[in-house]
């Protein structure tokens, strides 16, 4: 059982990260990741559950169900520390047009559940997010999903060593994902 103080420190860490993103302090944000970070996001899909009466399955072995979001089939981010840094470096070129003028974002982090302690003294954290993005004159996007982070302490500070996100859309209604989550 994790103590309240640890849970609170994890929550504060996530809120601070969200603020760094909303304030576009991307270099400070990058410092929150370990060098072995795997940063991953997938969309979802639209399939009949096995119990559905809408189809008569022809070949049961060919049936793939709603667990598709665990696979790479619909991946939207698949990044390591090098490619995350490259994405931030792109924003510094003055020619990253999707973010110039910049998006206005608000990252809301909720349902924080510090699930378990891992072998290395780290924690696994589940949370939900809503990211509001306003851009241009009246463009608006809501990116809603779930996140699972692996955190470990380096020199007493939490750092993110793994991030897996599921975005709850099949066809994304946003024109792009030019922001970070």
């Amino acid at each position: 059982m994790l103590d309240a103080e640890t849970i609170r420190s994890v929550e504060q860490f996530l809120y601070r990260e969200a603020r760094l993103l909303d304030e576009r302090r991307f270099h400070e944000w990058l410092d929150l990741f370990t060098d072995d970070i795997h940063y991953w996001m997938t969309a979802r899909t639209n399939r009949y559950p096995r119990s559905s009466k809408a189809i008569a399955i022809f070949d049961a072995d060919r049936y793939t169900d709603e667990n598709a979001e665990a696979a790479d089939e619909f991946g939207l981010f698949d990044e390591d520390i090098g490619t995350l840094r490259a994405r931030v470096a792109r924003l510094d070129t003055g020619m990253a047009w999707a973010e110039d003028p910049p998006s206005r974002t608000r990252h809301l982090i909720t349902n924080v559940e510090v699930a378990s302690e891992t072998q290395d003294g780290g924690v696994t954290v589940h949370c939900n997010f809503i990211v509001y993005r306003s851009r241009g004159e009246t463009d608006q996007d809501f990116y809603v999903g779930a996140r699972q982070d692996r955190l470990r302490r380096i020199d007493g500070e939490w750092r993110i060593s793994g991030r897996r996100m599921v975005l709850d859309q099949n066809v994304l209604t946003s024109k792009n994902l030019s922001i970070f989550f």
Partner: protein
Amino acid sequence: MTAEIAALVDAEHGLISRRIFIEPEIYDMELRQIFARCWLFLCHDSQIPHPGDFMTTYMGEDPILVVRDGAGSVGAFLNVCRHRGNRLCRANDGNAASFICAYHGWTFANDGRLTGVPNLREAYHGDLDRESLGLIPVAQVESYKGLWFATFDPDAPPLREYLGEMAWYIDTFVDRCDGGVEVIATHKWIMPCNWKFPAENFGGDAYHVQWNHLSAVKIGLSRGVTANTHSTQRMVSPGNGHALICVGPDDVGDPPMPEIETYEKEIAAAVRRRLGPRANLINPIVATVFPNFSLLRGTSRTFRVWQPRGPEKTEVRSFVFADKTSPPEVKRAIRQAGIRGFSPSGSFEQDDMDNWQECTQTCRGVVSRRMPINNRMGLGHDRFDPDLGAWVSDYRFSESNQRRFYRRWAELIEAADWGSVGCVTARQVEHA
């Protein structure tokens, strides 16, 4: 009426009226004259490999159910129940022997036959002709090198004729080795733009890469071959509105990832042998098959459909593909290059959206609409090249492909039937 709309495209002078990107009447005309008549991409063989596999997609705005039936034949039907017009199948894909409508339970076999109607005898008094009420099939379905296409027009020329000389160019994307390619990832999203902007961009806008995409080139995602002043880049139009950007045979457009580079070096000689002598002249990297199917091999490997959703909206369905026989680490690298380059989060692709959105939305102004699009670059400087079987602009940038794309659009808008528009092959041009 159609002649008047067709006249909005002055391909000879490279001036395109912006009315064609915004006016609902013209959009409806496109759906009828272009999307209900042309060969449109459905899916790749690898997405429905086994009996019973199905996928749902669109042809224009018509919902389509593509099915491989129990005998292995591929059919495409309107995904619309014959009773009240409800959408029959609501899933993206799966495997089914039959589909049962959620409204009243009418059942259709995966070959389209209506096999079940609740209360048939009592309620219809034996007066329902089930045989005539199967799912409405498209007029023709054919595949080319694993790519399935369909048309609603029974009089459309055969697919191979429609593709014409473009067929060889498609080979350079999907038929480089035995087994062809397979789809390894899918991206779907909505863009607030007219479908023609992405279609013409993939078919010939090399010009924008060196500026609009320079930030992505600078961070090392791509070799930036289209932005490289030393590449021998050409615009290539094999006819019938199809269009490509090609670089020289020794210019490398692949993403700078070691797995991909090593693999490409290993297969290079065999690929050239397979594709034939033309592969020693030219290396296609991005293309549009008229009207709305594009293929990309530089930086990322995807083919995608630009599905029209009204004049101001496009749904992209993009599929990352890899050579089927390539090793798993190569497929993984290609999938990552696809996500990082050309997907909603892609560092190349995300910078295209605002341009296409604003090119569309500024057409709303009635005065802005009077200003034509300027597609005059390289006017009078393209020529027919018999070795390439295509009309070619030799300088790195030209809008010759856009002019041919819109000329084809106008021809189809005006034509009453396929007989008056037809398809050309390069051989026909050469012998004329």
